[in-house]
């Protein structure tokens, strides 16, 4: 009975407040709420910085370039279209580290049949391709790009860039065996990254290639 009375009275008070306009705001209550929420927010923020790992969803960039002697620049065009046993090709590759962490790269250059498919998940196996150079020939440790460096375009020098590297593409009878008499081939540039957990290189899924006729 007492409870019922109290509930009725409270309802009456609420009704009068709503009728008069907005309910009376208590600054002390609001201040307390603000302090409580800001403290909870600060604790969550600090904990996330301390305990959560850095988000490292970056990427790497691999480009294949040729040298334009007239303009003294490296350009992504004028690619050669044939190779022979007697004529070598000079090409340049460039790698940029946008991975948000220090990365140890290895570039593998492989010769394969033109009909060979290239996968993003698996590297070319050595049963259907030949390595042009030994594994250690092209290796580099790069610092990650800074925020400013990420916004720059067309840069070719910096400690996050594996500056255009001169590489000679060649063919010999040993390499030609893999082609099985075909008159065209594919030279694939695969980018590998070192994984400290397994202490070995892993295929990054990043590649580029040249299709050439062979005579």
């Amino acid at each position: 009975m007492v409870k019922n009375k109290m509930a009725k009275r409270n309802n009456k008070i609420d009704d009068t407040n709503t009728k008069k306009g907005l309910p009376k705001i208590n600054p002390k209550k609001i201040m307390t709420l603000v302090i409580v929420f800001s403290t909870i927010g600060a604790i969550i923020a600090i904990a996330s910085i301390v305990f959560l790992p850095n988000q490292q969803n970056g990427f790497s960039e691999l480009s294949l370039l040729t040298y334009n002697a007239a303009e003294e620049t490296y350009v992504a065009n004028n690619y050669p279209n044939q190779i022979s046993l007697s004529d070598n090709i000079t090409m340049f590759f460039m790698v940029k580290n946008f991975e948000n962490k220090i990365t140890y790269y290895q570039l593998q250059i492989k010769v394969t049949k033109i009909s060979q498919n290239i996968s993003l998940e698996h590297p070319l196996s050595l049963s259907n391709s030949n390595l042009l150079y030994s594994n250690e020939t092209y290796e580099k440790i790069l610092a990650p790009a800074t925020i400013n460096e990420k916004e720059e375009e067309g840069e070719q020098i910096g400690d996050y860039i594996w500056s255009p590297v001169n590489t000679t593409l060649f063919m010999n009878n040993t390499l030609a065996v893999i082609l099985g008499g075909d008159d065209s081939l594919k030279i694939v540039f695969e980018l590998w990254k070192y994984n400290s957990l397994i202490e070995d290189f892993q295929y990054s899924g990043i590649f580029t290639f040249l299709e050439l006729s062979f005579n």
Partner: protein
Amino acid sequence: MRNKLVNHVLVCSITLLLFISFTNYGTFAQSEEEAEQIIQQASDKLKTVLSMLEEIRDINTEVRVIISQTDNSLQLINEAKQLFRDAQYDVSIQKANQALTQLEDIEEEIAKINESTIKESWLIYSIIGVVSAFATFGFVFLFIKKIHPWYKRKQIEEYGNLEIIYDRKHGEK
């Protein structure tokens, strides 16, 4: 007599030649083994340094210089490996040793950086701890001094408005 002397000289020369070639082969084999060992040591050290570098969160100018030096050591190791394949063991040893020394210096530098980072972390955590303690005391103070009395006052106000009506039993006046 003369024939005997010639034979003797011939035998001595052959023995000497054999001795020299065996000694050379021994030294060559020893160099090969040594080169292999030092290259392996340098490669292992490179792995250690890489793991240490990956743990650094703040990649500032100083760390970038260290990364460049590590890359330089990597190139030296790869040169040593190439020289080893070409059977130039002495030069290979030299290159691998150079890389190893460089990597040991880098390891020390990274250890120093990590040490200073740990000190900085301690400072930051201490500040956070002290601030949190003050905040806690502040809340307790606020609760005891302001919120609790306000709640009590409000309670009294609410209960003060209550009207107690006793139910009368049947037959009572």
